[in-house]
C-alpha cells in the first residue's frame, strides 16, 4: 500500500489528430472508488479508452502497479489487471449468454477458474443464469448491460472501469445495476466509474474527478464538491 494503483501523468490523447484530452494527471489508490463526471462529449470515455489501450496516448504515460503501460496493446493491458466495461452494449451478439461470459475469462490466468467465476456472476445477476443459453442479441437493454458488466467481472483484475452503466436504461433497471455497483464498494474493489448522472454516485464515491473540455477542472472528495456552489450549479444542475 505505498504508491497508487494507477497513475496518469500529463496524458494527452485524441482521435486522428484531433486532440481530446489535455494534460490529464490523476492517481487512483488501491481499494478506492473514483467517479469521473462531466458533460457529454468532453472526454470521459476517451480517458477510459486511453487507460485500457484502445486509443494511443499522444503524450504522457499511464502507470499501473509501478509499470508504464504506454507501449502495450489493449490485450496486454487487460493481462496486467485493468478491466474495462465499455460504454453501450459491446457484447458478442451471436454468442450465447454463457459463451459471452466465458469470453470474459479468456485470459489463461483466469480461464482455469471460469466455472467458479461463472457461478459468482450468476449469483450477482440471476437473470443471466436464467438466460444462459439464449443468444445475446435477444436480450433486453438491461440484460445486455448486466452481461457486459458480468463479463468484466469474469476477468477479475485489480482495477475495474465501468463506463456509464446507467446509460439508456429504465430507472428500475438502473437501481438494480447500482445495487451491484454498491456491492463492489463494500468488497473494497478498486473502481473507476464514469457517470453523467452525478447524483447517483455521490454517496458511493471516495473521490470525484470532474472533466470538462478534455481537462480536469476539479478533483476531490464528494462533500467538498458540494461546497463549491459554482461547480454544482454549472455541472450538476444546481
Amino acid at each position, binding site marked *: 500500500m505505498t504508491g497508487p494503483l494507477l497513475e496518469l501523468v500529463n496524458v494527452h490523447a485524441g482521435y486522428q489528430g484531433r486532440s481530446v484530452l489535455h494534460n490529464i494527471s490523476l492517481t487512483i489508490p488501491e481499494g478506492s472508488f473514483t467517479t469521473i463526471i462531466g458533460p457529454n462529449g468532453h472526454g470521459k470515455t476517451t480517458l477510459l479508452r486511453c487507460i485500457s489501450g*484502445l486509443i494511443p496516448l499522444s503524450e504522457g504515460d499511464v502507470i499501473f502497479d509501478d509499470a508504464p503501460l504506454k507501449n502495450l496493446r489493449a490485450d496486454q493491458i487487460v493481462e496486467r489487471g485493468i478491466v474495462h466495461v465499455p460504454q453501450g452494449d459491446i457484447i*458478442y451478439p451471436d*454468442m450465447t449468454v454463457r459463451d459471452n461470459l466465458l469470453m470474459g475469462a479468456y485470459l489463461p490466468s483466469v480461464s482455469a477458474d471460469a466455472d467458479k467465476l461463472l457461478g459468482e456472476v450468476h449469483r450477482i445477476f440471476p437473470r443471466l443464469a436464467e438466460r444462459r443459453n439464449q443468444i445475446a442479441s435477444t436480450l433486453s437493454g438491461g440484460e445486455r448491460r448486466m452481461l457486459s458488466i458480468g463479463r468484466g467481472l469474469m476477468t477479475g483484475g485489480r482495477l475495474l472501469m465501468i463506463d456509464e452503466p446507467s446509460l439508456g436504461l429504465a430507472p428500475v433497471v438502473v437501481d438494480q445495476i447500482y445495487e451491484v455497483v454498491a456491492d463492489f464498494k463494500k468488497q473494497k474493489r478498486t473502481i473507476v466509474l464514469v457517470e453523467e448522472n452525478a447524483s447517483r454516485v455521490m454517496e458511493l464515491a471516495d473521490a470525484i474527478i470532474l472533466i470538462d473540455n478534455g481537462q480536469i477542472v476539479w478533483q476531490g472528495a464528494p462533500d467538498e464538491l458540494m461546497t463549491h456552489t459554482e461547480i454544482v450549479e454549472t455541472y450538476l444542475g444546481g
Partner: protein
Amino acid sequence: MDTFVQILVSGLTLGAMYALSTIALSLVWGSLNMLNMAQGALLTIGGYISFAAITYLGFPLFLGLVTAAGTGVLLGLAMYFGIIRFMFEKDGFETNVIIATIGLAMMMENIVLKAFGAYPFQQPFAVDGGFRLLDVHIPYQNLVIIGVSVGMMVATAWLLGHTRLGRAIRATAQSREAALLNGVPVRRIFAQVLALSGLLAAVSGVMLSSITTLAPTMGYDPLLKAFIICVIAGLGNVAGALYAAFLLGMFEAGVQYFLGVRFGFPALLLLVIIALIWRPYGVFNRRKVARL
C-alpha cells in the same frame, strides 16, 4: 431414379468443393472485413504444389495433399505479415485490401505460369476406378472429394464451436473491441484466420484440379462461385454458406444435366440476381454481416 442419383452425386461433389472455398472466403470476411481476391490464386497454388510434390518429389498421394495444405498455411501467414498487418487498422481498408489482393493474385498466378507453364497437367491426387449404383457410374474420386471436404468442414466447425481459439475467432468477428478488452490478441487471431483460410483454399484447389485439370487461371471460377454463394448466404455467415454451397451445387448439376453444361453458370447468375432482388441481405436475411 438414375438421373436423380447422377445429379445427386455430381451436385454433392460440386457443392463440397464450393463449400470449402466459400468457408475460407467467409471466415476472412467475417473476422477481418476483408474480401480476399487472392483466394483463387491460393487455390491454384494448392493444386500445383500437390502436383509438384507427388510428381517431381515422389511423395505419396496423401502427403501431397498435406504439403499443399501446409503451403496454404504458410501463404496465409505470409499474406498477413507481408501485407494485411500494415493495412487493417487504416482507413479505407475494406477497399484497399481488394486492390491489394487482386495484385497479389496476379503475381501468384504469373509465378505459377512461369514455374509450370500453361500446360494443363493432370492432378495426380486422384483415385482411379469407381462403382455402379443403380446403373450410374460413380468414380471413387468423387467420394474422396466429398469425404475430404466434409471432413475439413466438420473440423472447421468443431474448431470454431468448441475450442478456445474458435471462440476467440468468433468473438473477434462479432466485436473486435470487446475481444481486445477480454485480452484476445486480435492481430494473432487475424494471422491464424488467414492461415486457416489458406489451408482450406489449398485443399479445395487439390480437390478441384483432381476432376478438371491444373491451369494457372483455375482459381477464378471457384472464387467467383464462392462469391455467388456468399452473396446468397450473406457474407460472413459460415453456416449459411454451407447450405447455399450444397444447394447451388445441386442446382448447377441439375441445370447441367437437363439443359447442358454451358447453361450451368448463367443459371447460377440468374439465381443470384433473383436472390438479391428478393433478399438483398442474403436468403437467410442476416442484416448484420460479419458474424461467425
